[in-house]
């Protein structure tokens, strides 16, 4: 595709550091034009100017424009506020919401340069990623999310009025504790729609309750002789989505409680893709703000002072400290992602022999087609496994450390050399695999005929034990389930041991 040159103009875009609505509009028009020329496909944009306090509000409600009330959001707000007021922490320049239209927040304190950067980064970078990437397409529903959040907030507010704030809060606490295990990883959930949600809510509540009753029907089984019928597990297959299982099968929950569980589950599902595409998504947005702004500069629309400020911010964002530096905090996803996207473009446009050997498919190809394909069809784990090139590994000087608790010393298992590239890439890819980052805990069995206790099974990964907060989480699980909950650990060799048991002795009285 051939880029359309903008008609040459002697007039530059405004260069003052104070922004005005006109100036933002001018910048946006130019950035939109360039982005279209590059073939970025986006949701329509909605750019909102907000204050620092509103930005902190947005932080507190996990970036969403509306959310239900919960103390943990208050805690988040307080700590953000403290950090900001003391100057320990700058606020993010932008928050962008995966919705249609795509809402991007610009903070009023930003300079005009920063606003332009943010527009390029969020309104075109992230926005196009939200629209294109398969995970977002599969798991989230940009058209309905804001409506759904509104529904959720109203519903929970209504529950608070009806059943008391405290009960709702305790329930939400428990759901939040299990939020990360409240997502479907492999199934496509049905689309959300506000109208349908409301329409079906009552219906569903009744239906669910009747299902549960069916499950727990305890007619005496006269002819059941102990030992003759083989013990059948329920569920027949392990269930990875703990919150889903609770919603559908927890015996004692009231219909409204099931609905709250469902709300938390749906929101967790909405954020699921973001947790898996950080490197790709941030890298993509950084690549595009850099590319779009530079394009404008090449067209002679931007002043030098603008570019200097822009480059300074850009460099800060994509900086990767080395492991021994004080501010090292793991691999910076912005830095890695940006470097990888730039590198893919380089491989396409100017491949070396090494690139041809490693990436025969894309070396020398049209970079924008390659980009489009990569953006649409990968997540961090597979993106790194597919596209991390030896050059980037060398640039970052990546190396792997093996830490086995049974060994006295740590071992450098691979570095950025010919024999290590594959291994480093593999390990880094694994590092972004949610399945190994978080413990694998699934519903194993419910003792249907006995005490109705629920057994969870933790499949150990690389002999890693569970963390210290496990007991707390189990209490939450027991609160939701209403009966005793056990946690077993299955080791790599197949042995299973009981790790933890949260007993609930007193059965809640039925209403």
């Amino acid at each position, binding site marked *: 595709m051939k880029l359309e040159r903008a008609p040459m103009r002697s007039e530059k875009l405004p260069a003052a550091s104070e922004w005005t609505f006109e100036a933002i509009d001018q910048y946006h028009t130019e950035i939109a034009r360039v982005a279209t020329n590059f073939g970025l496909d986006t949701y329509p*944009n909605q750019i909102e100017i907000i204050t620092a306090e509103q930005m902190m*509000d947005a932080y507190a409600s996990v970036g969403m424009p509306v959310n239900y009330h919960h103390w943990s959001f208050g805690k988040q707000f307080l700590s953000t506020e403290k950090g900001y007021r003391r100057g320990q922490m700058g606020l993010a320049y932008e928050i962008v919401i995966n919705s249609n239209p795509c809402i991007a927040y610009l903070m009023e304190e930003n300079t005009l340069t920063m606003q332009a950067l943010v527009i390029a980064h969020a309104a075109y970078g992230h926005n196009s990623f939200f629209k294109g990437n398969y995970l977002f397409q599969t798991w989230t529903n940009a058209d309905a999310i804001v409506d759904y959040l509104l529904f959720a907030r109203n519903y929970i507010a209504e529950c608070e009025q009806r059943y008391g704030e405290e009960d709702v809060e305790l329930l939400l606490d428990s759901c939040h504790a299990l939020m990360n295990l409240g997502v479907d990883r492999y199934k496509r959930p049905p689309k959300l729609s506000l109208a349908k949600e409301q329409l079906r809510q009552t219906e569903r509540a009744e239906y669910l309750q009747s299902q549960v009753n069916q499950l727990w029907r305890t007619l005496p089984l006269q002819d059941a002789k102990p030992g003759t019928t083989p013990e059948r597990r329920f569920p027949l297959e392990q269930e990875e989505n703990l919150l889903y299982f609770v919603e559908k099968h927890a015996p004692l929950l009231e219909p409204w409680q099931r609905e709250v569980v469902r709300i938390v589950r749906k929101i967790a599902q909405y954020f699921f893709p973001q947790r898996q595409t950080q490197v790709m998504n941030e890298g993509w947005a950084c690549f595009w703000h850099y590319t779009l702004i530079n394009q404008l500069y090449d067209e002679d629309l931007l002043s030098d002072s603008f570019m200097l400020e822009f480059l300074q911010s850009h460099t800060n964002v994509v900086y990767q400290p080395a492991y021994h*530096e004080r501010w090292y905090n793991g*691999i910076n996803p912005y830095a890695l992602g940006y470097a990888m996207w730039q590198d893919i473009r380089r491989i396409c446009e100017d491949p070396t022999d090494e690139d041809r050997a490693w990436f025969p498919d894309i070396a020398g190809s049209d970079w924008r087609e390659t980009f489009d394909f990569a953006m649409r069809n990968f997540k961090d784990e597979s993106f790194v496994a597919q596209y991390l090139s030896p050059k980037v590994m060398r640039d970052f*000087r990546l190396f792997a450390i093996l830490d086995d608790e049974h060994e006295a010393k740590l071992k450098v298992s691979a570095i950025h050399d010919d024999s290590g590239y594959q291994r480093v890439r593999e390990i880094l890819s694994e*590092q972004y695999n949610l399945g190994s980052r978080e413990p694998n805990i699934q519903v194993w069995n419910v003792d249907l005929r006995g005490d109705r206790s629920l057994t969870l099974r933790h499949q150990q990964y690389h002999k890693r034990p569970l963390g210290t907060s496990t007991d707390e989480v189990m209490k939450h699980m027991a609160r939701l389930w209403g009966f005793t909950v056990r946690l077993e650990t299955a080791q790599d060799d197949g042995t299973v041991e009981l790790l933890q048991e949260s007993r609930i002795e007193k059965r809640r009285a039925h209403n």
Partner: protein
Amino acid sequence: MTRIIDRRFDSKKKSAVNRQRFMRRFKQQIRRAVSDAIHNRSIRDLDNGEHISIPAKDLSEPHFQHGRGGVWEQIFSGNDQFASGDLINRPPTGGGGRGQGKASNQGEGEDDFVFHLSREEFLDIFFDDLALPNLVRTQLARVTDYKTQRAGFTSDGSPANINIVRSMRGALGRRLALGSPLGARLRELQQELERIVEASGEDCDEAVELREEIARLRLRIEAIPFVDSFDLRFNNRIKVPRPTTQAVMFCVMDVSGSMDEEKKATAKRFFMLLYLFLNRTYEHIDVVFIRHHTVAKEVDEEEFFHSRESGGTVVSSALNLMRDVIQDRYAHGNWNIYGAQASDGDNWDNDSPICHDVLGSRILPFCQYFAYIEITPGEPQNLWREYQKLIGMHSNFAMQRIEEPADIFPVFRELFKKTLV
């Protein structure tokens, strides 16, 4: 189609509800922190919020996570010295260079969670501790003191208040208003008279008639009074309630050996509360700290709360000192005097009747209010019995035995009954 929306004036304080939820949830911890904070602040320092810190573990949100141990193989950046197969000593626990997955479990989590309480939130918790009724929290007492001030003029009043200038001006106006039509007619008649006299001579009938009429007019003009009661204007003075702007508050505390830190902390709250109420009413408040064991001494706040003495107790020494200070510095009339005394009730037996005398005759008559609290779990002591005799005689005296801060408020109830209408 792109929209740029200015949201800056939209709903602010979106997180206010979440913040309240947070405060409610961690009330216990926050109260404890506030209690510590009170210990460290001056009793006058009630206009600021407070930085509160809560142990982070109390408000953690648990998740299933990997713990330490097992096998970890992780990627780091910036290799400057390692080759494949190198063996490295384990870095000390919590040191840098750890992968984020592991560090987050242990490393940062230990810090306290610090946040800022606003003044309102701080006071709310402070009041909660003291079991203050809601009405009192919002509607605070105002001592009314009247001041007369000019308010224009009235048409009646006492002769002493006649405003001469105003009255004369009124009279002049009235005379002009009533007299000028007659004067004009008079001048007219006189002109006519001159004309007739010139034409027909002095004694024609018309001239005589005119002269009679002129004479009648003169009479009427002269009949207009110079000052009528109707003209009188009096200076008007009205009484307006005026908040008295200065007060002095005496904090009297027993610091003998039997007053331990906890009792002092309770006493401190009592003083703080009084200060707070006075603060709502007066612009300027002096605080005098008097501590005593067998002898009394005026000290600064720091010494008042934090130094410890031992020995016996002679309460009257403090009351005498308070009386002297009042006479020296706070002569009655210019200052509203408040007294607050805290003690564990121990007193030298023969001294208590003296206290009764000094307080009853030399202090209470000059005080707006005097409150005594006895911080003791035990039986009332002799000082208590002596003071009890004062209750019936003086409405501005209150006393209360307390064991914990929540008991303090009844002491103030009297005060509010009097001034909250």
